């Protein structure tokens, strides 16, 4: 039973009928391949996303039924101080985590993209935090950051800082601590992506720049940066979404505290939804997170498109 994909060239009538039967059969075969995955995908991802936009306009706790309340949830959101704190903290995390991680990842990738003994070892080391369990990682960092006896502050004291920050127990330093751990954990992942991008740049480009007398910095500006643009774009999008949805790291490292100093959107959704059982209101906060990620991704796409034209 040969399933030819190319249609016959001359559209005679029986041929056309045969062709439409062909399309039908391909559709059936195609869907039969998709179905095992698609059923799970539709039920567990697509349907919840659609239901989310309904729930956000209802008042619902676990018991009873969802009651349509229109925009009430969103009106409440505007006057909810905790929500604004969570949004502010999320943006704070994002604003620092993206440049730090990107800088560290690109720096490491540039260092490792050369003829050196031991490159494989350093690459493994940099990537290792990314695959370790977040529970163990957060626990170790919590102990390292411990203000009185922790190694981090001990080292800082040796360096000459007599009053090192209290990190996870200080309202000012808890967020920087979370950002540091986030960067430590993720830079190796993005380093790998940058490395892959760097290795697609043809060596001739660098040779040509050298012949023209460009120094290392000029070569970086004129060859590396423009050639890496697709990679940088991908990394920016992934890092932005990753930062907006930061959750387990914060849950385990500071649990949003001290006070609300590290409360972020995801955690606020979790609190209102799973701990206070306000499913409707939590869905409204979820919509904000969803829209935030969506809009920023679209904007980044548009900017990238205009630049690459």
């Amino acid at each position, binding site marked *: 039973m040969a399933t030819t994909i190319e249609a016959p060239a001359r559209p005679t009538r029986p041929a056309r009928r045969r062709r439409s039967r062909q399309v039908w059969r391909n559709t059936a075969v195609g869907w039969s391949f998709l179905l095992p995955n698609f059923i799970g995908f539709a039920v567990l991802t697509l349907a919840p996303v659609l239901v989310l936009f309904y729930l956000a306009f209802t008042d619902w706790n676990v018991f009873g039924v969802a009651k349509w309340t229109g925009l009430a949830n969103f009106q409440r959101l505007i006057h909810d101080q905790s929500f604004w704190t969570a949004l502010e903290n999320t943006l704070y995390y994002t604003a620092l985590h993206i440049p730090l991680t990107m800088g560290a990842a690109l720096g490491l990738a540039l260092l490792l993209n050369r003829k050196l003994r031991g490159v494989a070892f350093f690459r493994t080391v940099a990537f*290792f935090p990314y695959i370790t369990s977040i529970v163990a990682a957060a626990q170790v960092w919590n102990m390292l950051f411990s203000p009185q006896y922790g*190694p981090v502050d001990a080292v800082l004291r040796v360096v000459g800082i007599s009053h090192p920050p209290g990190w996870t127990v200080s309202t000012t330093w808890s967020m920087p601590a979370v950002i540091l751990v986030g960067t430590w954990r993720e830079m190796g992942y993005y380093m790998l992506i940058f490395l*892959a991008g760097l290795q697609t740049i043809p060596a001739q480009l*660098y040779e040509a720049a050298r012949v023209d007398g460009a120094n290392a910095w000029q070569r970086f500006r004129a060859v590396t940066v423009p050639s890496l643009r697709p990679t940088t774009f991908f990394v920016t999008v992934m890092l932005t979404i990753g930062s907006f949805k930061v959750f387990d790291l914060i849950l385990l490292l500071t649990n949003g505290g001290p006070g609300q100093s590290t409360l972020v959107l995801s955690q606020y*959704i979790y609190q209102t939804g799973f701990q206070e059982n306000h499913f409707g209101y939590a869905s409204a906060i*979820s919509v904000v997170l969803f829209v935030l*990620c969506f809009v920023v991704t679209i904007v980044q796409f548009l900017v990238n498109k205009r630049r690459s034209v």
Partner: protein
Amino acid sequence: MDTMLQSAPADALLTPIARRRPGKRANPVVRVLIYVLLIAAAAGVLLPFYWMVVSSLKTDNDVFTVPIKWLPHSVIWHNYLDIWRKSQMTTWLKNTLILSFVVTALQLFTGSFAAYGFAKVRFPGRDLLFIVYVGTIAVPWQSYMIPQFILMSHLHLSNSLWSIIALQAFGALGVFLMKQYYESIPEELSEAARIDGMSEYGIYRRIMLPLSAPALASLALLTFVNTWNDYLGPLIYLRSPNLRTIQLGLSTFISQYNAEYALIMTGSVLSVLPIAVIFLLGQRYFVEGIATTGLKG
């Protein structure tokens, strides 16, 4: 997304760089400087792991001392025996292993099967559907975890291992990764098989699956590690103590015995160790998998 379509083979990462870039060697001063930078960075990255292992071999009182003991006074191995007695480590490991294997098997099957449909069978609506798949990778799970939880409760899946299986086994990432790989396999191969009368299912099983072994290995490792390390899924869905996974178990153990620092570090080491071994053995597949998603994302 086509601006991101690059055609570098992912394993370019693993071929020696010397062959690809015949430029002159950096001068010795620069080389030393680079090494100093790299060693400092590596020390910083590894410090938490070093501290974890060393603390797990100390007594509780020796974990936090002034000045810090970077080497244990005397090595205390019995933490590694005590942990099994004081926690339900066996149950946690058993649950985690069941989940990791089942999820990986399902993800491999549904992911590669669907990817074949996307890559090799042409039918109307296919490309649009694929965009929907890729689009959901950009939607944070945190934003739809609530309706998903409600749905799972209605299906009577919450508070059972099935919930985690359902949660992880149908990811779009697997479809994406496999599709990229299938598209790199020349169309002539499947065309020849079609002329020989092989059905699409036969082509998938006899030609595509064997040829895509490296991609399947990448997907298997990434899925296994993800499931092993998942904390949020179990946190939300698994309420009974006998269903806890290693991550959930460890976090409850930490809050229960919050002053037994050494034992907590022992548990942490045990939760990281299997993944570290898997990672070191299968490193090239991890690297290839990530390079593929990154380059062709």
